[in-house]
């Protein structure tokens, strides 16, 4: 029998061995495809199916690998006239078969959204690495264990090791971006890649040559810990990247006129010694429909005694951060998301009136403990950071009327009426969209919310477009079939966007919106056009002499 014949013989046997699991795997894929083609009608049930798919693929791989375990001392398959490399190749071929089945399902499911070729290619390509990595890890661990129980026990043990390592050793990577071994520093990416390749090569080598089991255990553990840790390490690398790049960016051109002011808003905390500080960025618009997004801002507060506090307004952060003030530590919490300069009412194309409109403002609220200095306006500030300029692109357009629908470029939109209250209806938009997972964006949470598409209501007669607000009433975000791409299904209740307030007053309540003849709904996607850095000269914080008291 030729080498290829042995591979096929072994693969066919593995497929027959796992036939029921394989049937379940295919059935789950089919169910997901049908569900996606029907617009995710049963997404409450199917949202967990991609996880079942992972479990099933894992079980199939474990079954096949452990049937011809390379680590079992005295494994009798070794005396059969089968080339060990053919056996190894058959296990890899099995993973490829599972991947191809998953990709076929992915392709079928995504085709419902009519993505263009590039989108589809990207989505399918993005699905390959996570599946391959998970498959390879499963195969490596399975090759060193004898049963499904021992596989999961090994996985738990490796997970515990990982947690330990994370606490003991890996965490410094977050700040340094490199691993330190014996006083020498190694680039993280290189280290991860080297250890991962070495571990997998070692596991593969055990097929070719019998190796003692206990030798393998350590290597296997190291391999999986590394791969588990990779996400953390990559995240650390990514988060370190923007800061290092900021100095190389060009300065924000004058046309944007970005300005920052810092002033005390008042005390909203039960702690009278704490005040909220508003940092207001203002920016004008350019000539095109565009947005300016603050990616990273650093505010250096200097107090009269010479103490300083640096506060980062980081596009990565989604939770309160902290800052150090000189020798003592004070908490400065970021309460709002990074700055997004909204276009509350814009023309399409921009009208002369909008070109001349004043600077748009956006406020970020910080909570700081240096009440006395801030209140008295004795602190000075220096702000720098960088911004992204996003251009709006017309991604989809449909009549703003009941039952209108549009499917193109990976997004399917349908407008429906929904009962808001007895006798009152509200336009609701059902959106199904796809995208390939952007590792950077996914890991860091960077650019997600602020780059979400905008909705404009276009009045052709008046040649104006108005920003439409959308409230998410239902949202399911899951893989179309296998991980690597996202299938997002949302129900959005449409309403007029509230007018942004000035001077800390509440926003103007949203007006009811209803379908209107002659108007069209435009979906604007935001694409990054450029990134700039900015710096403000030192300025004094606007103080507030009498802070409102908050009862305890």
């Amino acid at each position, binding site marked *: 029998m030729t080498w290829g014949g042995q591979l096929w013989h072994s693969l066919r046997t593995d497929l027959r061995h796992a036939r029921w699991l394989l049937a379940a795997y295919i059935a789950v894929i089919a169910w997901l495809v049908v569900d996606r083609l029907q617009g995710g009608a049963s997404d409450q049930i199917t949202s967990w199916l991609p996880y079942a798919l992972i479990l099933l693929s894992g079980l199939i791989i474990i079954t096949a690998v452990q049937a011809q375990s390379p680590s079992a*001392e*005295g494994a*009798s398959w*070794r*005396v059969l006239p*089968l080339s060990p490399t053919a056996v190894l190749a058959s296990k890899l071929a099995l993973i490829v078969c599972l991947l191809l089945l998953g990709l076929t399902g992915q392709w079928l499911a995504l085709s419902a959204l009519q993505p263009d070729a590039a989108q589809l290619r990207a989505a399918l390509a993005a699905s390959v690495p996570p599946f391959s990595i998970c498959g390879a890890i499963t195969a490596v661990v399975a090759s060193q264990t004898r049963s499904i129980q021992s596989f999961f026990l090994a996985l738990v043990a490796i997970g515990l090791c990982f947690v330990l390592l994370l606490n003991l050793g890996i965490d410094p990577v977050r700040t340094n971006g490199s691993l330190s071994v014996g006083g020498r520093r190694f680039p993280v990416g290189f280290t991860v890649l080297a250890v991962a390749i070495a571990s997998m090569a070692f596991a593969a080598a055990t097929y070719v040559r019998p190796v003692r089991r206990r030798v393998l255990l350590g290597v296997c553990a190291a391999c999986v810990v590394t791969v588990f840790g990779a996400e953390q390490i990559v995240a650390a690398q990514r988060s370190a990247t923007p800061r290092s790049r900021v100095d190389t960016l060009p300065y924000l051109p004058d046309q944007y006129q970005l300005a920052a002011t810092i002033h005390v808003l008042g005390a909203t905390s039960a702690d009278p010694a704490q005040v909220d500080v508003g940092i207001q960025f203002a920016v004008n618009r350019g000539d095109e429909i565009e947005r300016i997004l603050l990616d990273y801002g650093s505010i250096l507060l200097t107090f009269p005694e010479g103490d300083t506090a640096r506060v980062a307004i980081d596009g990565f952060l989604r939770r309160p951060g902290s800052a150090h003030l000189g020798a003592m530590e004070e908490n400065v919490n970021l309460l709002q998301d990074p700055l997004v300069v909204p276009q509350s009412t814009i023309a399409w194309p921009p009208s002369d009136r909008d070109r001349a409109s004043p600077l748009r403002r956006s406020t970020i609220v910080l909570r700081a403990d240096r009440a006395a200095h801030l209140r008295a306006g004795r602190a000075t500030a220096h702000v720098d950071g960088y911004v992204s300029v996003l251009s709006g692109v017309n991604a989809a357009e449909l009549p703003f009327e009941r039952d209108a629908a549009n499917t193109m470029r990976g997004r399917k939109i349908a407008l429906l009426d929904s009962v808001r209250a007895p006798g009152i209806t509200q336009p609701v938009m059902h959106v199904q969209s796809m995208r390939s997972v952007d590792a950077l964006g996914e890991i860091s949470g960077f650019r997600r919310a602020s780059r979400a598409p905008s909705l404009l209501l276009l009045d052709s007669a008046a040649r104006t477009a108005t920003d439409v607000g959308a409230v998410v009433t239902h949202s399911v975000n899951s893989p179309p079939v296998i991980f690597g791409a996202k299938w997002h299904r949302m129900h959005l209740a449409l309403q007029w966007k509230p007018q942004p307030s000035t001077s800390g007053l509440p926003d103007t309540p949203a007006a009811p919106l209803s379908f209107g003849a002659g108007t069209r709904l435009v979906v604007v996607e935001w694409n990054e056009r450029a990134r700039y850095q900015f710096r403000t000269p030192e300025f004094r914080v606007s103080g507030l002499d009498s802070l409102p008291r908050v009862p305890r």
Partner: protein
Amino acid sequence: MAAIVAQALSYRYGRTLALDALDLTVPEGSMYALLGPNGSGKTTLMQILAGMRRASHGSAHVLGRDVRHLSVADRQRIAYVAEGQRLPAWMRLDEWEAYLAPLYPTWDHALAQSLRDRFDLDPKRKLGALSRGTAMKAALLGALAPRPQLLFMDEPFTGMDVIVKDELVRGLLDSAGQEGWTVLLCSHDIAEVELVVDWMGLLRDGRMTMSESMESLQSRFKRVEIVDAGVSVDRLPRGAMQVERSGARTRFLVSDADETLEARLRAQLPSDARVEVFDVSLREVFVAMSTAPRSGMESAGSFVRVPA
């Protein structure tokens, strides 16, 4: 020509030395019994020779090939069957045969059918559902049907009833004799082994303490019985083992017997003493060699008559 040659073979499990610079030569076409007490290293040796383990030191060749570099073609000429061998539990016997058959150009379907009948195996039963003995029969079927040139059998009779064991032994004798197979057999069932093998090796503490043909063994090992009504024997001749005394009767085993043994013994004993020399079984040789002191199985001296 030798089918198996091992030189200075060592294998270590942690701190335990399972095989200690072991040498072994198995002639082609022979049926070689590897005997030894539990833990002497028989299974380890067999697995190294079958290419399932790597020796820590030393070299081993089977059918002229280094066991570390056995090709697929080499493996098509070798079969291995062992007690506790993990068969694919999910397969039925017929599926197991269908899996193995394409791997061996020499697979003999008629022999497989005959073995299935002889062992009374149900082709539709799952291998995982078979009893230990029946699973062993299935494993034997898989090992014998390719008509291998070299067959490793590690405790093949485990769990088999007497009739099947007898059939298997006869089948082995037929096949091995006709086909010129070389069989390396390791078993605790010495009575069955004795019927089959023509060579024997004895392993003890990872070392080969003896390796020779059954013909040589049977001519060299003899049981001696001396009956002397008036005296008892106090000192035994060189090489005496397994000494038993009962009144005037003394029995022992010698390992250096030749045609002059009886005459030599008579020459040292009074004329009224009765000397008888018997052939010994493999079991007796095994027990004697396994229990003899390591330093040597000899107690120097000649017969001395003492008062009864």
